[in-house]
């Protein structure tokens, strides 16, 4: 996995230079510390099995964090990623059910799912970039709309996914769990995307919209492109949610939206745009997962777990913001 860091920074200190080039280093450090702590409290948690479980559960959040990262690149934000994921989740579940649940129907449903995500992203891009509404409130409004749509498609949670779908997602091929193939494919995809013109242009827009416009960039189209990319990755996240939960739920993604924003910040990207990496967001999604499992393994009483998780995530956010800023100023 590679990183796109803003190319125009010149720093004297080697630490700063390193941070400027790899803004996700603090997150990586936190990740290692958390892995060690997990290992201390419960050696089993570092077993191949447990790590597979961790990836299987948090792959969805990784993808949502990546989705969010592309809009944050351009200094925008998308509070509807969770709703898009819910909508895609129920869409593919219902489609697969209607088409009999065979292998072909799964593929067709996934294709439609990606298109739904793309369409949602384009809607967001249109209202934020073309209509120039404020991103926070506009994407909140679209999230209400998408949630309504999801409720039309599947009014109550519970329709199961075809066996072939979740068996594949949770299965093992040639001794390697399926989710690791997905993770590898994701790594390659992100590497390639980081090299595209769109990624660079998004960062340029985030660095300064006016400057980007004056140097001839089609700012509106670029921002819409960012939202479209975000919608597609939210759809991919929905596939993972569906594989993990094996059922449809019109509200499944709602809680993940704010985590995706937290992951982007924790990964070293700046909410003010123009600076960041998708690698950091992926690592940060794992950090959130590891915090949750650490709180569990450390023997925290069950009703204290949410509180301790909240504190730990807040602390991690603070550390992430404080350290990554040193690479930029």
């Amino acid at each position, binding site marked *: 996995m590679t990183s796109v860091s803003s190319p125009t920074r010149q720093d004297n200190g080697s630490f700063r230079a390193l941070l400027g080039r790899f803004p996700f280093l603090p997150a990586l450090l936190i990740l290692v510390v958390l892995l060690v702590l997990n290992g201390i409290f419960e050696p089993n948690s570092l077993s191949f099995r447990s790590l597979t479980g961790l990836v299987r559960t948090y792959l969805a959040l990784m993808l949502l964090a990546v989705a969010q990262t592309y809009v944050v690149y351009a200094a925008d*934000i998308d*509070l509807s990623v969770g709703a898009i994921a819910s909508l895609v989740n129920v869409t593919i579940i219902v489609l697969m059910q209607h088409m009999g649940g065979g292998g072909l129907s799964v593929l067709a449903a996934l294709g439609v799912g990606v298109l739904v995500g793309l369409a949602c992203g384009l809607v967001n891009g249109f*209202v934020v970039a073309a*209509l*120039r*509404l*404020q991103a*926070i*409130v*506009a994407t*909140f*409004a*679209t*999230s*209400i*709309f*998408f*949630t*309504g*749509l*999801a*409720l*039309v498609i599947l*009014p109550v949670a519970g329709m199961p996914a075809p066996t072939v779908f979740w068996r594949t997602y949770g299965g093992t091929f040639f001794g390697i769990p399926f989710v690791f193939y997905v993770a590898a494919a994701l790594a390659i995809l992100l590497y390639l995307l980081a090299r595209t013109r769109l990624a660079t242009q998004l960062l340029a827009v985030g660095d300064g*919209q*006016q400057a980007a*416009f*004056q140097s001839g960039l089609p*700012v*509106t189209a670029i921002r819409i492109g960012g939202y479209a990319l975000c919608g597609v990755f939210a759809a991919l996240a929905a596939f993972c949610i569906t594989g993990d939960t094996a059922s449809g739920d019109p509200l499944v993604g709602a809680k993940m939206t*704010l985590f995706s*924003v*937290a992951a982007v*910040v924790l990964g070293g990207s700046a*909410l*003010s745009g123009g600076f960041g990496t998708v690698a950091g967001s992926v690592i940060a999604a794992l950090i959130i997962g590891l915090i949750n499992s650490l709180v569990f393994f450390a023997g925290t009483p069950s*009703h*204290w*777990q*949410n*509180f*301790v*998780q*909240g*504190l730990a*995530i*807040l602390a991690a*956010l*603070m550390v992430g*913001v*404080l350290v990554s*800023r040193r690479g930029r100023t």
Partner: protein
Amino acid sequence: MSRVIEIAKNPLLIALALIAALLFLGNTLSPGFASGGQILRLLIVAALLGIVAAGQNLVILGGREGIDLSVGGVVSLSAIVAGNVMNGMDGGIPLAILACVATGALFGLFNGLGVTLLRIPPLVMTLGMLGVLQGLLVVIRQGIPSGRAAPALSEFVTRPFLLGLPGIIWLWIGVGLLMAFILHRTVFGQRIYAIGSNEQAAFMAGVPVRRMRVALFMLSGVFAAIAGLCLLGYSGSSFANVGEQYMLPSIIAVVFGGTPLSGGKGGYTGTMAGAVLLVVLQSILTTINIDESGRQMVFGATLLVLMLFYGRGRGLRA
């Protein structure tokens, strides 16, 4: 002509016109929608949202991407604290008010310190705080019963108090007057606009920017806590995450009131109209006979359309 356009662009007038239009529409769809008693009920709900939005408004006015996502958590927490302190007895109300204000101020203080001393972006800081608050709510619910509202508090919120209006509406009017006074008649208020429009210049001019920001977040916590207390009176007992429904609507009320999220301009009078507008809209959707799903879609789409009336970002020019 330009003067007419100028007036037509006034966010307060837009909101009032939209409210009138929606009330008319509501009354056509379901006769009695705009009756006195019904409007009073809407105003009570709007007052709860409006009080939360007062704090949100201050934080947003202060600029530098000011926003408070933790208000919903503070509302819920405050409702529980109040319920347990008064536990159904009128005598406990003064202490409950104190406890709520202290709770709100404390979490506002944390937010403010994180934003100023550690320079964490407000969105991130208050988002993290929301997570902490939600966890805290789980802990509290485990050990403590949810508590009950004192009869006097419920009466204050739901029964007519003066001139046929319940106490909470008077409280909201009081908040409105207080906000107008603070924003337009005090040095503190002038400084809010100063740091909101140009922090650097305000700092050079000797405005204690950091202390100001901490104060704004504390006020936001206190307003949310007061709303939580009133919400307890409205619903009788507190239940899980009652406050969550206020987080983003409080921001939308501010935007509908003509305060852009970039801060530095706007005021609270518009926000009050914005809160009423949101509540009337939601209420119309509940009277129309459609599914929850359809209602949500219409609500989301209407919000987007309404946003078109308000400060859209400026177009880019070479």
